[in-house]
């Protein structure tokens, strides 16, 4: 009976903070905050050798041909171009809506074909790809602002409005089959 009345001594929690600090510092040091960032790309499926490739009637005006050579130089529609002019030109191509004869009929039909040499550097290829995506992003942004009065980023991404913007400017960037350029 005497035992029951005995009090359990209180645990001193004063050093709790020290222990927690120790653990905290350990995790602080070991943490790597790397983020997965990059340009997202969908590859075309591998062509089945038993099935002949479908003949696609593609109007030449709808295809914007971008070529990057082994010297990291840019050739757009067979004319040399600086990389800082590429976004502007791509935007003109996809927003043409049949006005100028050498650009696309409509935004839905517009295609950007990106070809590169085996000697092109990754840096330049990714930069060119970036400019193309930027052109599409800007076109979508403008359309969204005009139509809905809101930035494309602020639209609910799974909603109808965002879907409409994406449908209006489908990102059709084709990475061509590898070709050897002499």
């Amino acid at each position, binding site marked *: 009976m005497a035992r029951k009345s005995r009090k359990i001594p209180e645990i001193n*929690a004063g050093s*709790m*903070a020290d222990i*927690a*600090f120790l*653990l*905290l510092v350990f*995790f*602080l040091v*070991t*943490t*790597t*905050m*790397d*983020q*997965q*960032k*990059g*340009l*997202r*790309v*969908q*590859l*075309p*499926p*591998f062509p089945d050798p038993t099935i002949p490739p479908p003949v696609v009637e593609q109007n030449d005006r709808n295809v914007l041909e971008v070529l990057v050579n082994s010297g990291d130089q840019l050739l757009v529609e067979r004319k040399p171009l600086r990389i800082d002019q590429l976004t502007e030109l791509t935007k003109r191509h996809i927003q043409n809506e049949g006005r100028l004869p050498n650009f696309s009929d409509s935004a839905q039909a517009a295609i950007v074909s990106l070809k*590169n*040499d*085996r*000697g*092109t*550097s*990754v*840096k330049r*290829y*990714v*930069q060119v*790809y*970036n400019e193309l*995506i*930027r052109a599409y*992003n800007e076109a979508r942004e403008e359309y969204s602002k005009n139509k809905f009065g809101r930035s494309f980023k602020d639209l609910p991404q799974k909603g109808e409005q965002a879907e409409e913007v994406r449908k209006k400017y489908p990102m059709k960037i084709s*990475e061509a089959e*590898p070709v050897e350029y002499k």
Partner: protein
Amino acid sequence: MSKFKKNKGRELPAINTSALPDIVFMLLFFFMVATKMRDPTVLVKTALPVVSEVEKIEKKSWVNHILVGPPINKEKSGTAPRIQFDDKFGTVEGATGVQAYIILKKNEHPEAIRDYLTTAIKADKSVKMGMIQDIKQELRKINSLKLLYSASEGEVDE
């Protein structure tokens, strides 16, 4: 003078630190959750290109990495760019190739999400596209079509 003397006698109240462990624990849990313990030893140098229109990948565990770049240990592995999977050097084709690695990784995930797995190509900016193209062809052959060109966010450098 008397104004200053008055204050001298007064003691500062002790700051209550009883909530300190709570704050520290909160931080601790944050870092515990955010920490990824095991990083594969990086064998190749991958200085990523800097571009503006990057997208973030939400599901980190759904990403498989392929590193391409010049080896860090030049004496042992030379200077030509090489491919790295997990902890080892790999090749484009064959038993240590891209296909084998991606299939191995796919099998670690339930069948329902295998089509959502993304392959991130973390390539040094000096690497030539020929090598990347070979990897891309291998990925297409096993119908692994979601791809990410790893890049850092920022203003495009020349």
